[in-house]
């Protein structure tokens, strides 16, 4: 039990590594925002592909229902966040809304991942270290996606790493109960997986891409999104 939690914690800490490449990004020009948005979009779409393919094995309809709930979640959360005067560190207004939303969406998506870790452990603990290592590696590009949204809007590198780790904390917290009550949780898993994928895809479509197309070249954005997506899928399918 404690072991499952600790393994989950290691995977959460790995997410913070995704912030490192952004130590070199300082410019806050709209063009940089456009291209980092495109990068985050590709990574999130690639991650959603992996989730949907996994969810389809458990139940296609349940995954799709979950995905619809995920879309609804982003719609409602985006609307509610827009109604409040938000502050994200020293950042305010529309940027702060987008930063809060990405952390929220990625945190919610980690819930499903945490359940997946827990149920995987229940299958047998001999492969525990391999599974943990694989998920830890998967988390690094997720930290990259979060930092790609936070950093060009004025967050410090420490804040990028910190929020990346926070977004992954549901993994250890949910891995343990999922391991204990595997029957209940594995029935909920396809809904959770669908929810995570739906929320990420909709976040990309409604927040990240429209903003990217306003400031960047279409062909460059398309190139960044599609290459990041394919790389992410390859990364997840082979590791």
């Amino acid at each position: 039990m404690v072991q499952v939690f600790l393994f989950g914690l290691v995977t959460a800490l790995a997410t913070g590594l995704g912030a490192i490449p952004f130590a070199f990004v300082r410019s806050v020009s709209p063009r940089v925002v456009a291209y980092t948005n495109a990068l985050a979009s590709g990574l999130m779409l690639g991650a959603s592909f992996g989730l949907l393919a996994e969810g389809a094995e458990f139940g296609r309809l349940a995954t799709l229902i979950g995905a619809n709930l995920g879309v609804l979640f982003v719609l409602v959360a985006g609307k509610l966040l827009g109604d409040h005067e938000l502050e994200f560190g020293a950042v305010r207004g529309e940027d702060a809304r987008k930063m809060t939303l990405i952390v929220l969406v990625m945190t919610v998506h980690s819930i499903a991942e945490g359940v997946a870790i827990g149920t995987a452990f229940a299958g047998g603990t001999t492969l525990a270290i391999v599974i943990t290592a694989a998920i830890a590696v998967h988390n690094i590009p997720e930290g990259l996606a979060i930092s790609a949204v936070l950093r060009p809007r004025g967050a410090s590198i420490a804040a990028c790493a910190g929020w990346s780790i926070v977004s992954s904390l549901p993994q250890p917290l949910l891995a343990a109960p999922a391991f204990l009550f595997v029957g209940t949780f594995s029935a909920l898993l396809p809904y959770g997986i669908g929810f995570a994928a739906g929320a990420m895809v909709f976040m990309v479509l409604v927040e990240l891409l429209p903003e990217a197309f306003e400031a960047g070249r279409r062909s460059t954005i398309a190139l960044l999104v599609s290459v990041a997506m394919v790389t992410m899928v390859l990364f997840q399918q082979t590791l």
Partner: protein
Amino acid sequence: MDPILVVLVFATLAAFTAPLGILPLRSRTAVPPAWLGWANALAAGFMLGAAYVIAETALVAHPVRAAAGALLGIAYTHLSHRASGVGDIDLNRLDEVDPTYGYRILFVSGLHGAMEGLAIGLAMLESLPFGILVALAMAVHNVPEAAVLGSVLRSSGLGPVRTAGLAVAANIGQVLLAIVAFAIVPAVPGLLPWAFGFAVGGLTYLAFSELLPEAYDRAGPVSIALVTSVATGFVVLLRGIVR
């Protein structure tokens, strides 16, 4: 019916819906821009859904070869857009009279048609009923595409019959590529993951380089995101139902 005939019939049907897009132009009522945006979003969703289903088959079995194929598809589409100078032009301008704009639109329609044909052929390989559904989705998508093409060509002084002919001609590569993909890909050992990957790369690149940016220009992001995700989910769900 012989499977290859099924491919021929439905790919042809998809190409020949194009003149339907020209009909509303005769009534001289303007198409509201938001409708064009939603039509683009619908097309983007269909393309992404088809790409997802094709990727699901290929990437899980041969991730490295399929991903390499996808990168090739992205590079090919990106470079052909760049080389022909259509990389960043707006394709939905209904008021444009410059003839070179018309040619560019024709070229891009042809390029889209080729990629859609590849998708139809490969979807038919997945299963015939699913391939038919993808062909029908592409047929629906060709209508608004032809509406734009048609209005551009009409405004440069072309008659309705020739406009309809050119709209079909721009899509005819689709029929050829659907049949070629269906017949040749399974016959060449080891080609399957590469071809599937190539189609996935090309389809996603087109969705993000043209369909989505043009959609966002014409309607609010929430409605565009909803139409796109529902269309994607629709194709993915159909794959689950039609085995």
